[in-house]
């Protein structure tokens, strides 16, 4: 039986999106959410927060989503942690590309705050299903 999804690390550089995602995931999903504003911050905070799942914005200044994923995978405790990309580029070919580099799924942006936590939960269950 899979562990219950409780802690989500969300890496996103834009503060307004951070706020609405955190609100949606916490209020509707009941998850505990740690926000990181950059890939670097994510790499620093992840070991202590021990997320069950990581949401990664693809396009960020500095270290982008794919690079952050790559570096996370170098940390032994995050070799298997499911990572979901959040992106406005959600063409099928692009989605396939993200999955190739190790994302379990892609949530297209702009997301609907009302369904976000459900989307995440479904991905989590499918990942463990």
């Amino acid at each position, binding site marked *: 039986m899979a562990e219950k999804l409780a802690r989500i690390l969300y890496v996103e550089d834009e503060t307004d999106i951070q706020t609405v995602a955190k609100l949606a995931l916490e209020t509707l999903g009941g998850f505990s959410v740690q926000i990181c504003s950059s890939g670097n911050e994510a790499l620093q905070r992840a070991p202590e927060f021990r997320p069950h799942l990581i949401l990664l914005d693809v396009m960020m200044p500095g270290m982008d989503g794919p690079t952050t994923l790559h570096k996370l995978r170098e940390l032994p405790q995050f070799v298997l942690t499911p990572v979901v990309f959040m992106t*406005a580029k959600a063409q099928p070919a692009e989605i396939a590309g993200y999955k190739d580099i190790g994302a379990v799924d892609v949530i297209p942006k702009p997301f*609907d*705050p009302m369904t976000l936590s459900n989307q995440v939960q479904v991905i989590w269950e499918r990942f463990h299903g």
Partner: protein
Amino acid sequence: MVDPSDLQKKLKELSDAYAAQLPEKLDQINRAWKQLPDNNWDDEYFQTLHRMVHSLTGSGKTFGFALLSEVARSLEEFLKKIVQTKQLPDEEQRKCVQVLLSELYQVSIRRDTSIAESSGLAAVEPLSCGGVNPKLVFVVEKDPVLTEELKVQLGYFGYDVVTFNNLDNFCKAMESHPNVLVLMDIDFPKNSREGIQTIKKIQQERDVPVPVVFLTAHVEFEARLEAVRAGGMAYMNKPVNIGNLIDKLDSLTSTLPSAPYRVLIVDDSEALTAYYAAILEQAGMVVKSVNNPLNVMATLLEFTPDLILLDIYMPECNGMELAKVIRQLDTFVSIPVVFLSAESDIDKQMLAMELGGDDFLTKPIQPEHLIASVSSRIQRSLILRSFMVRDSLTGLLNHTAIKDQLDREVAQTKRRGTPLSFAMIDIDHFKQVNDTHGHPAGDRVIKSLSRLLKQRLRETDMVGRYGGEEFAVILSNTDGETAQKVLDVIRQDFSQLRHLADGTEFFTTFSCGIADVSFFGDATKLCDAADRLLYKAKQAGRNQVVLGHAPPISGSDFT
């Protein structure tokens, strides 16, 4: 776990904040585009521009600006093509970007009707219910007589009143009370509009404006205008008409119970019903699923849904047959039935509607679409239903509805062995009120009693307008003696209520008869007994509550 109104409020705030930042963001993009270096290709500069637009694409819809997301996406695609060539845009391309930029400005003011509506939340909110329910009222008024009067009168309608005769104390109290209603006098010794100015200051420091009703002797338009600008929800001239004031306060706080919508899903696929149920539950509805259509009847009667979602093709019995059967039950004649099916043949859809369906949704359906269809159907049907069962003047149950309700309640208490009391109330000398003060004044008296009853009784109690000035109350789980105590307090308070008509004040009283279900076999006998007891109260001098002590068998006490 989730308080929908709270979440909705927060989302609205976030959307407001996003909207406020939009002009600046667009200006930044516009400036960046205008200052594009035109001598040689600057990759980094162009990437930055691209990222700013990309950010709008990825956020607009989340905050209720769906169109903005779309236009930004077109612009982004276009910029991406330019980036790939690593060539400065030519004349043609520049024109295109210009057009898209100006379109971006145009759609930036096009907020989706409501961020909550698009996600189905608004619909979850029952009719005209505000969600917040502050019952604390701050009265700021320099006239001590009026202050005391307001305190007493508002108290009768269940409001807790704190009075202030000084603006400084009021401001201090406001800091620690986010959820109050304010009744504000405008004219204070220092300045004839000081009340408005104080409110203005307070509103500026708040994210959510405090609801304010201004009370004033000022009649000039400028004062009204200033009051509106300070965020006043209402403006009432002195002398204050308490009835109007309470109406206002009630509408600002809304005391309607917030019952969630109930949906019954009938579909033979367990996976699908679970999926639909999850979507609707997330929107705050209560959902029950039935996978075998033959089991529908029992669930239907027990669950009493507001809407039925029916799959068309099921083994044993198809959705259309089922709709027909449901429609033949009196209780469910008006319930909305929505078909859900992969059937896209329009003729088949029409046939389904003829057999009793109200709507046809084609699978697969978008979650938002499902929520929106279901909730708008329910909302409309509840409004229609309320026309059928509600009295138009008071909003109470009408004669037929309260009698139906009494039948149901009595049957239930007999089954469960729980207590129940039924009360009949009649306003004393009501004809005199109409004759002396006119019918509008009479209507206001009726309204004020109905409000008092609704506010004082529990949500589980049912109040109906039985006829002209006659009311009926079903107090569930309450024996006769308790009911008598409750209604006697209401009687005393009602007799203290000051009614106004053309500047003159008057008071009215009511008489009440109460019968306890344990003495009577059915609803009709119970109802007759309450009626006789009411007559007894009138005979004994009015303005009193009479409880029947009938011997269990004969009931001869009443003859």
